[in-house]
């Protein structure tokens, strides 16, 4: 009898403990739901480099304006993450995405921002069918990052990038560096997005009509291996590849290690973009770093320009899950970024971004951003091509990696690119 009572007691205790837990859990959820309760904005940040800064900014912004701001970050792929948020009817007020995502999301989920004042102060906003949906967070450009201190330590004279715009002069410099003790003066990033979405993309972008070229590839009316631009860029890539510190095992080179070597001056050149500053700045970097156009033996002027443009865009959720008050608060936030002194300082000084708005005149704080800004200001920027298919970077990135690993030659690689494009049907876009 006693045993039975203890048994029942034990069971009841466990069950009631469980119930207490459940009740406790249930009651504390939805406590300060800023998303659904109609006030305050949630921001989805997809730029890991500025996550810390955004969190601090959110606190200050809330303290100053009284509008609750919560910043979220996810390491999931942006499209997957947003897909699940929209499926669960729990979207963010403001989402930061890439150009491609704006195109796919805009019609159904983004607010029309054509009437906002900042539209007139930028050339980088994204619009679909004539309506502005994407607010450009920054301008980013790619080129050859260099460590001037490391170069000057060997050459003994100041490093002037424009002296090395041609591939021939660049090759001479490499030989000088090698003779002077820098065994492998370059580094190459093996990431598929760096190879296919950035370097290979320049093959499409550095010409009069990138769109026509891409369509020709898709319709199989042009041969890539005969293309002058393709060969010119691949010649440069070969030089970078053959002089890289990671040559023996190029495809397992880790980005962090490569950037550390560049920062500290162990290598002198690396193809990348000004976003790399956030990685470089974590190491003991030397003072004089910068970015120059990719050297090529060409007359078309592309070796005097960086390739880039707007990067990362905010859009405001247009669904009924976001109240009108929240939509207005989101618009106010965007205006604060552009027109408020503190907002501008946040973008340029705290996040080290190159502003996309012509009214922001603050000097860019980091050397790579400063390089980019000088090219932007002197109108020496070749625009991004934002209409590459979603799987371009992954599939052609893999093929490019094969080339990097020495498993494929230039002709084979060109064939792979053409094969890929033949399977793509391109839709019209505005």
């Amino acid at each position, binding site marked *: 009898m006693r045993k039975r009572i203890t048994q029942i007691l034990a069971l009841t205790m466990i069950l009631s403990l469980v119930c207490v837990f459940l009740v406790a859990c249930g009651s504390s959820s939805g406590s300060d739901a800023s998303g659904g309760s109609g006030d305050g904005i949630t921001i989805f940040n997809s730029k890991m480099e500025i996550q810390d800064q955004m969190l601090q900014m959110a606190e200050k912004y809330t303290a100053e304006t009284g509008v609750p701001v919560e910043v979220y970050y996810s390491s999931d*792929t942006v*499209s997957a993450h947003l*897909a699940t948020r929209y499926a669960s009817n729990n979207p963010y007020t403001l989402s930061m995405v890439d150009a491609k995502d704006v195109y796919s999301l805009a019609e*159904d*989920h983004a607010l029309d921002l054509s009437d906002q004042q900042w539209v007139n102060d930028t050339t980088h906003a994204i619009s679909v069918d004539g309506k502005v949906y994407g607010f450009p967070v920054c301008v980013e450009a790619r080129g050859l990052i260099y460590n001037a201190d490391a170069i000057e330590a060997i050459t003994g004279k100041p490093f002037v990038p424009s002296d090395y715009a041609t591939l021939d002069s660049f090759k001479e410099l490499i030989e000088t560096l090698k003779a002077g003790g820098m065994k492998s003066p370059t580094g190459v990033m093996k990431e598929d997005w760096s190879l296919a979405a950035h370097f290979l993309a320049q093959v499409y972008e550095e010409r009069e009509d990138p769109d026509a070229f891409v369509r020709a590839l898709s319709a199989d009316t042009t041969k890539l291996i005969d293309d002058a631009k393709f060969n010119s860029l691949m010649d440069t890539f070969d030089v970078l590849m053959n002089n890289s510190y990671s040559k023996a095992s*190029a495809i*397992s080179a880790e980005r962090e290690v490569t950037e550390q070597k560049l920062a500290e001056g162990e290598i002198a050149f690396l193809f990348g973009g000004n976003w790399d500053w956030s990685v470089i700045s974590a190491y003991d970097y030397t003072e004089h770093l910068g970015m120059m156009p990719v050297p090529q033996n060409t007359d078309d002027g592309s070796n005097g320009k960086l390739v880039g443009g707007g990067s990362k865009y905010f859009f405001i959720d247009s669904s009924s899950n976001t109240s009108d008050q929240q939509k207005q608060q989101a618009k106010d936030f965007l205006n604060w970024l552009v027109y408020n002194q503190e907002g501008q300082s946040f973008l340029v000084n705290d996040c080290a971004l190159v502003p996309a708005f012509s009214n922001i005149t603050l000097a860019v704080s980091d050397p790579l951003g400063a390089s980019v800004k000088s090219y932007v200001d002197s109108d020496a920027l070749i625009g991004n091509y934002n209409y590459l298919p979603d799987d371009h970077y*992954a*599939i052609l990135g893999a093929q490019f990696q094969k080339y990097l690993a020495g498993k494929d030659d230039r002709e084979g690689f060109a064939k792979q690119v053409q094969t890929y494009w033949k399977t793509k049907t391109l839709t019209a876009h505005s």
Partner: protein
Amino acid sequence: MERNTMSYKARQFLMFAGPALILFCMVIIIPFVYGLYLTFTSWDGVSATKPFVGLANYVSAFKDYYFWSSIGRTLIYSAFAVVFVNIVAFVLAYLVTSGVKGQNFFRAGFFIPNLIGGIVLGYVWKFVFNRAFVAVGEAITAGAVPSLLSTTGGAMFCLILVSVWQYAGYMMLIYVAGFMSVPDSLKEAAMIDGCTPGQAMRNVTIPLMRSSFVTCLFLSITRCFMVYDVNLSLTKGEPFNSSVLAAMHVYNKAFIYKDYGTGQAEALILFIVCAIIGITQVYVGKKGEVSA
């Protein structure tokens, strides 16, 4: 006796299996059916419209070369991983139940790898392969040493190694419980009758541990087939997409290449393949189970 009335059976069933049944239906059955419906649409994951397209997604899934090659790779990977995991786990379990001093300490030690979540596990091993192994290699040969992860075969090897490392402790646990459930009296009786320890193992212990084998084989086969976390963080499909296993391909297809309908269809095909293998194995195993 009221044992056989429908109402008695229903009451018994609901009383014991009711909660499990409800949760199971709500969390698995309902979404599965809805997911099945989505494979018949051309939804891209974000748009508000889900146009019905019949079997088009299945057709493109069957035509997807990358999908079938990823399944092939997964089969190879699973075959090796399952065999090695179970051998290592069984041996470990035997060692830690053999009565040596400090075996509890070892039981804890071998289980530790499994305590780490899949994604972090991959990053740690990536660090080991790319940095630590290479550093050791360079110190020994005084030259540049390519990382194991930089070749296709090497990457597969690394995946298998990490999976064995991760799951051996887990399966060891199940085998330990199996070993412990075989009464010593039976083993002693067999030895008194003249068996060697090896024969006792083969004819007494192992048959009585059949349920452990079935469980472990099932768990390891299904986990290896559906591996994603470690795949993502250890190799990310590199080098050149040659280590993309099935679950990763399916995820990429749905969310990165934004072909959600086809991705879902492929996921369902993957499920059917895995289910056939898994259920067959369990069915064959359970038939021979010995009751106490």
